């Protein structure tokens, strides 16, 4: 009982911190907002890569679809800012999920290297197509409507909407991993043929997982498009070389296949990266590259995985190694 009370206290404390953060450190609100975005990235990637074992290099596709769908809706609907954004974000999520379901028909049949590279191909192709398509501004990109309220209100607005999205994603996944659906995902990861031979509907399972991942990413794309204010086809919406890779890195850094790993990974990565940008002018990408190499070479299990190996009792791995 005491443990439970402590837990509630911790949750309440964390909640308060989230609420108070933008007021405690107003200069960093945008940074925090991006952190929420990174957490959504890492969580949704891990649903596929860590839990289902389908390492997608193209999840950025859904982010881009969300960003464009929302921006187009905002441009053409004639609704007020908030209405258009709300409906546009929902639309972005739904379209992204639908795209995942459709593409999944072909792509989710691929495995291992082939799935990874197939999705990479989709992500890059999407960027190039958006860059050539005049309806969405082609190479010139799209500018979203200006936020109607005051400046400070805008920062807070995006901080809280993205925080809410990250929280919703986290809670959804937490619930999901507690059901047998989560076990089924793991089963596919460990041995898909076996899972199929045991009677699991693997195709539907994979599609459901990918669509869910895409749904949250789509919404995050819609919000991020508005947060950034300018949607460039290759460098914002379908930014495979940055966001697309960071998703993977953050999940791996934190520990893939765990619930908290991606969250921890996102936080550590985001902060490290911001520090690099501030102090290593012009060399930050070299540092980032070296960091990536170091992470995957020395911490392939990620932070949580390494902790679990070292202190199996503490970090919630039920399976002790003999």
């Amino acid at each position: 009982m005491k443990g439970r009370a402590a837990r509630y206290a911790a949750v309440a404390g964390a909640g308060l911190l989230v609420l108070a953060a933008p007021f405690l450190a107003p200069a960093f609100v945008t940074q925090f907002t991006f952190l929420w975005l990174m957490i959504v990235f890492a969580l949704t990637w891990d649903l596929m890569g860590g839990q289902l074992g389908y390492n997608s290099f193209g999840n950025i596709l859904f982010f881009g679809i969300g960003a464009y769908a929302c921006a187009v809706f905002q441009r053409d609907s004639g609704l007020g800012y908030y209405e258009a954004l709300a409906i546009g974000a929902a639309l972005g999520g739904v379209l992204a999920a639908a795209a995942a379901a459709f593409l999944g028909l072909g792509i989710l049949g691929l495995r291992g290297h082939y799935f990874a590279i197939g999705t990479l191909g989709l992500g890059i192709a999407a960027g190039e197509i958006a860059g050539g398509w005049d309806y969405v501004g082609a190479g010139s990109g799209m500018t979203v409507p200006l936020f109607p309220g005051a400046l400070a209100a805008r920062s807070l607005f995006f901080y809280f909407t993205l925080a809410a999205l990250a929280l919703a994603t986290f809670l959804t996944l937490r619930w999901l991993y507690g059901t047998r659906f989560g076990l089924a995902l793991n089963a596919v990861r460990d041995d898909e043929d076996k899972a199929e031979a045991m009677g699991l509907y693997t195709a539907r399972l994979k599609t459901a997982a990918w669509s869910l991942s895409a749904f949250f990413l789509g919404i995050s794309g819609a919000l991020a498009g508005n947060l950034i204010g300018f949607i460039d086809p290759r460098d914002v919406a379908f930014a495979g070389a940055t966001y697309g890779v960071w998703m993977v890195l953050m999940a791996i850094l934190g520990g893939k296949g765990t619930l908290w790993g991606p969250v921890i990974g996102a936080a550590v990565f985001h902060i490290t990266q911001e520090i690099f940008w501030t102090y290593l002018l012009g060399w930050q990408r070299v540092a980032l590259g070296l960091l990536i190499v170091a992470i995957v070479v020395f911490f392939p299990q990620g932070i949580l995985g390494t902790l679990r190996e070292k202190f199996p009792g503490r970090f919630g791995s039920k399976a002790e190694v003999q």
Partner: protein
Amino acid sequence: MIDNFLLLFDYPVLSADLALNGLLIGAVFVLAAFGMALVWGVLNIINIVQGEFVMLGGFVALMAAEAGLPVLLGIPIAALALFILGWGLYRLVIFRVIDRDLFVSVLATFGLSIVLQQLSNELFGADVRTLEAGLGTLLLFDGAVALAQIKVLAFFLALGLGLLLWLFLKYSRLGQAIRATAQNPRAASILGIDTDRVYAATYALNAALCGAAGALVVMAWAIHPYIGLPYTVRSFLIVIVAGIGNIGAVVAAGLGLGAFENVAGFIFGTEYQIALVFLLMVLVLVWRNLRLQRKRMYLK
């Protein structure tokens, strides 16, 4: 798009020109793809730095020429320099990611590619650079088709190196060790083959092939520090189409890809060229997989 298509009918020579130039571009892809296939087959690694090796090969050739050496000598020099670099990278990083999960190697080499890009940016600047090999241009069909001779050289060099590689793998001692390691590394090691050295040599050989390709790229086209990714992706595409064990198929797929790109880019517009290449790749993958799935198998 339609106009472009019709243009091909109005000027039939144009299609020859496009296809031939495409084939010549493909030759460079083929060189990089040889290496990709080797590294994939033997080390079981997808090497994302492939394109950066090409880029660095180009800069080495450029530096050699600036140092006053004959331009064409840049090709072997680039190959040699990259061989050394490849060996070094293997000893530093790659050997740690062999036998690990796919993602470890992909991300590690991706990290390396960022580092190499940025270092080249610092060292050589982001400018577009080219090198004049002084070979002139081959004019066909009354000058309606022009082929730079350096590209023709690249073409034959790619074919020649392919043949050499085949002979090397089949008959040389190291080549045999490479093949054995590729097929069954544990068995190779119980026969006394030092698999670690085989891996290092394979990786370095791959870098050397890419280096030669890069030297040709700077002479026939242009290079800059961020040119790598398209070469990585294309060599990957070629290898998945051709399979990792078949040098002849790599040549065919590479040349075919070059021609496809050039013609498709012409018809649909250059802005869609990259999208088309990637969509083609996805389609090939899915199509091959669906065919296998009818046999209830998967691409492995």
